[in-house]
């Protein structure tokens, strides 16, 4: 991946299969090249705040973060809290993409400022439809303010 190529979407997903399927869905929506996939919350934070392995990252922040909830090390809720709590990243749209339809998780996410909350459908066709809709809307259609 070219370091200078602008990253449009940051995918945070620990499941190989879900990640692969998400990528496929985004690809179907025409968003292939701009997706960067990290495997856990810690890595996502490093990426977003240019720390650790990503200290030298040159790209602009992503236009959209697709965030899984249940992940090793740092979970999605914590990532969301940090992103929305920091002026540098708070304007980046964050969409939860998770298996959990639990009331608690939904309420917590919205309290922390999530932009959308999507439950991954088991059926692939519906999964593709949901992910591509969200990707298109947030990464392409939606206008956001620059970093504060």
């Amino acid at each position, binding site marked *: 991946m070219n370091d200078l190529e602008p990253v449009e979407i940051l995918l945070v997903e620990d*499941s190989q*299969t*879900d990640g692969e*399927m998400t990528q*496929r869905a985004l690809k179907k929506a025409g968003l292939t090249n701009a997706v960067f996939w990290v495997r856990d919350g810690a890595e996502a934070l490093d990426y977003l705040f240019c720390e650790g392995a990503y200290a030298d990252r040159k790209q602009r922040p992503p236009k959209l973060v697709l965030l899984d909830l*249940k992940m090793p090390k740092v979970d999605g809720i914590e990532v969301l809290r940090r992103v929305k709590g920091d002026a540098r990243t708070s304007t980046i749209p964050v969409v939860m993409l998770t*298996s*959990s*339809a*639990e*009331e608690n998780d939904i309420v917590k996410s919205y309290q922390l400022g999530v932009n959308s909350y999507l439950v*991954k*459908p*088991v*059926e*692939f*066709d519906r*999964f593709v439809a949901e992910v591509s809709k969200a990707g298109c809307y947030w990464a392409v259609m939606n206008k956001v303010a620059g970093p504060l």
Partner: protein
Amino acid sequence: MMKPANNDLRTNLGLAFALLVLIGIAAASVDTVNRFADGAHWVDHTQQVIGELEMLTTQISLAESGQRGFLITNDERDLRSYQSSSSAIPMVLDSLQKLTADSPLQQRRIANLRIVMDRRLAMLRIGIEARQRGEIDRIAERERLGRGRELMEELVALVGEMRAGEDALLKQRSAVLEAGRIRTDAFIVLGNLSALGLLLFSFGVMKRQIAQRREAETQLRRYAAAVEDLYNNAPCGYHSLDAQGIFVQVNDTELKWLGYEREDLIGKVAFPDLLLPDNRVSFQENFSQVKLGTPVNDIEYELIRKDGSVLPVSLNATAVRDEAGNYVQSRASMFDVTLRREAEQRMHRANAFLDSVFEHIPHMIFVKDASELRFVRFNKAGEDLLGLPKGAIIGRSDYDFFTREQADAFVAKDREVLAGGKLVDIVEEPIHSKVMGERWLHTKKIPITDEAGKPRYLLGISEDVTDGKATERRIIELNQSLESQTAELQASNRELESFSYSVSHDLRSPLRAIDGFSRILQEDHGHALDSEGQRLLGVIRSNTKRMGQLIDDLLAFSRLGRQHLNVTTVDMTALAQEALAEVNLEYEELTPQVVMAPLPKAQGDPVLLRQVWINLISNALKYSRTRKPPLLEISAESNATHVVYRVKDNGVGFDMKYYNKLFGVFQRLHGADEFPGTGVGLAIVQRVIARHGGRVWGEAAVDRGATFCFSLSKEGRNE
């Protein structure tokens, strides 16, 4: 207002004074008339004196002319004229002297007159005597003539003086008379005026007195009317009886009470005839007593009204006597004591009621007097507890029944209650009963005070809690065990829920992968698969879909266990209709015939109850979709505490021998091919209703439809 006596006195004095004034006036008038008469007499008297004086002058002139004639003629006739006149003169002088006896001045003048007259007569006589002797001496005669002229002049002057004196006297007397007349006139006028004034004054006073007397009479009449009104309309009955006991007087109040007219009673009816027969002897005794002079008070009688009903009264009577002390009539007053009697009866009944309550309360109740703490009342439960009859308890104290220590303890508590003035609750106290052994009592001791707040009695209520104590211990043990079991159960529930939650989650991810990658395989490598391979992929995908459904249902079911109940009043008719509409969308091809009665409202969580209706109606339609048409009947019935809701269909039903599997999770009585489903619907229904404190049950027979019922408490249940 002036006192009448005073008024009378004034009138009388006025009249008497007026009378006196009039008498005075009359006397003064008489006096004046007398004086006028006197005055007229004095005028006559003066005229008489003047007449006498003229007579005197005439006589002396006659005497002179007689003498002169004789001197000239020497005729005897002349001499006789002289002689008669000169003899008349002293008589006239005497008469004058008499007439003027009241005036010393006139008397002196008369004396002078007499002297002059005597000289003149004497001179005349000398001339006559000389002539008789024949002597004619002209010179002496001339001399005597001169001298006689002088004496005549002197005489005329004297007579003139006397006349003037008499005139002056008359004038003086007339003036005195006139002054008296004027005074009298003034006196009469003033007297009459003042008499008139006095008469007017007396008349005024009398007129006022008459008016006052009339006013007094009017007041007297009014007063008499007021007294009569008081008599008739007094709030008590009045009557008077003659010596035979017959009515002679009775007031309106008493007539009204009895329902009689006055003419029904007066002179006709004897009072005892109006009494209940058993009152009559007592009446005769009392009546004799009254007649003998002793009044009677507060005698109670029952009178019979005209309509036959009975009027209880309280009567006071006394005798009215004439001056000689003889009995004239009685005078009795009486009060209607119906209300008092009723109040007494009510009080009596209330007392009897309280006594009965007191007696039959299953706890020992006792009352002790506050001073010596001896029992004054004791109920049946107390007798049973102590094993003694009331007779052995009343009048005695705790020391007669209990050990010294126990009695001391009881008495100390009693004293504390009486001194503190408020209830003392003794939760547990031991007592030794002769018949029942050692017992535990829960006693409340209450001070009963008099109007001044001074304690008079001590009320004690003791509940035998010996059995209760044992039960209580057992309950405590059971509760403790239940609490620990509940805690265990709650812990295992939580574990189970978190397990099913995470399992559901963790299961979805691989399932999604299976479906997703099957699809990718189909899309990317479909061309490399034959139709059997395509079919197999389809089987994989339909099973993952089904598995996904199972997991979703399981999640929904597990969520029910954790979800908070929001209990409100729920319109079950509207809820069932909504559910029916929603389910109908799913079974569009069916045109079920639905009968639904209005349903009573329920207390519950509307979201969860809606799910119950959806599941039951959906089940009913699902299992009767083969019927033409499917029949669905929704109804409810309620009793005092619960409402039972019912959903009945005409579907395939089920075999009651599998009833125990009906509400289990994932338990199905029909094949998924025949009737699709995961077997969670009824489990959810049961869980929701159980959380509402209700019950679910069903009845069915194969091919003869099924009925599912659930009951909810009317009060609802809050968690």
